[in-house]
């Protein structure tokens, strides 16, 4: 089977996507799959918009959070230290530096409220080139995301997608 984007290379990435019970399939070569994923931000085939609704914090943590989320991990946790968003809300402090990536979206409005700003201006440490480290993390996460999508592990993919987006926002902003 040829890739449905370039019609040149063999399609090696096969993704089945279910939206509201409607099934769609896509068959791409690796290069085009990568291209789509880049052009669409993170995940190809509208997966992003599909999951966006699910992982919208309003939906997830608002009053309606209990309904319609069967099978989806409801408690967002930092992948490194295990601190949950609820912990953060209750304690007021974060568990580790990765929490800043994990809870990036929730933190931004808080930072704006506290500091009237969301961007650091000031001293920079001499070591620990963060950009390099973030790019490395990002690369690993994208590989994991592709693997998860191939396995049709959408819940895992959603979590990975969120982490990737947070990282991209950080990198894009810097």
């Amino acid at each position, binding site marked *: 089977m040829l890739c449905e984007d370039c019609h040149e290379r063999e399609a090696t990435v096969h993704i089945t996507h279910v939206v509201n019970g409607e099934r769609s399939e896509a068959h791409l070569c690796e290069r085009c799959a990568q291209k789509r994923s880049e052009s669409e931000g993170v995940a190809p085939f509208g997966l992003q918009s599909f999951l966006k609704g699910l992982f919208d914090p309003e939906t997830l943590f608002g009053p309606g959070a209990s309904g319609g989320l069967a099978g989806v991990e409801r408690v967002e946790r930092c992948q*490194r230290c*295990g601190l949950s968003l609820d912990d953060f809300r209750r304690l007021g402090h*974060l568990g580790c*530096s990765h929490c800043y990536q994990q809870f990036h979206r929730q933190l931004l409005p808080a930072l704006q409220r506290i*500091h009237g700003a969301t961007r*650091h*201006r*000031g001293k*920079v440490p001499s070591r620990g080139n963060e950009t390099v480290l973030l790019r490395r993390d990002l690369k690993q996460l994208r590989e994991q995301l592709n693997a998860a999508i191939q396995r049709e592990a959408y819940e895992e993919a959603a979590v990975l997608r969120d982490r990737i987006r947070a990282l991209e926002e*950080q990198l894009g902003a810097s």
Partner: protein
Amino acid sequence: MALDEILKHPVAQWMVGDAPANDIVVGTRVRLARNLHEIPFPGVATRTQLGQVVDQVREAITHAAQGDGRTPRLGRLHFFTMDALSPLTKQLLVERHLISPQHAQTGAGHGVALRDDERVSIMVNEEDHLRIQVLLPGFQPQEAWEMANQVDDALDARLVYAFSDAVGYLTAWPTNVGTGLRASVMLHLPALARAGQIRALISAVAQLGLTVRGIYGEGTEAWGNLFQLSNQVSLGRSEEEITTHLATVARQVIQQERQAREALLNRQRIELEDAIYRSFGIVTHARSLSTKEALRLLSDVRLGIDLGLISGIPETILQELMVRIRPAHLQRLVGRELSASERDLQRATLIRERFKVQR
């Protein structure tokens, strides 16, 4: 060097001596919050991870103290783990403003480094892995920031900090993220307090991203009319901007306090003199004084000195005694544990003797 050796002076060096604007500014403090890359913050770190932080920081401090050609020598910095310190010693550190009360409750896996002039202290594994603090007498925000920056540079040469290009130095509390900088000036504001202006001051500085609160006392009470003015905002402004902003506002507050003193003298001279001399009389003769009462009286005496009504007593009497009359310092002076009522007696005795020596 033992910690008790460093603390042997009855008063810390930041409390005594001549310093800019020290008729109103008791002292200046700058602290920087820092964390190490890849290790969870102290609040969630495991014992092993806390130990790793202590080891790394201890090594960095030892090297920083010696200097290595690239970074300047930091001077005589000594590191102690909290479990090596007695409860009394920890409390002495709290009363000298060198560690936080919460940090005094910690043990193994936590530490403190102290320079022997007590102007630099570093809490290890308090809310953040490192809390670098510089404490100077009088009004010296710029100098305090520069000193803290130097200490930070020296440690940065050996440690990899948790840092993000977007939001800066990463801290346990989002309220400290960015620069990790909290600069404070400790102010004695008896005239503004007497004129009922503190509430207005608090709301005015809040508009400017700053905060005012009492150094001692609970809730809205500020014992001894002692207040701390600090920056709230740590993100989105450079360290210089934060320090300069705080200094600018502090200068205005100092100016307001001077004007209020002037106004008091002009309009209520008799009442003011009467209040000051009464307080002076009590504080030099009382047999039992609570901390709260002692601070109130000493505040009046200090105002009397500033206004030229009382002479022959050093100006720094307030900052000196505000530390020496506190429980652990009294206990060390007497050499045994004291009940609250015993402390009140010892406090009065100490103050009486302190004034006798001076007169």
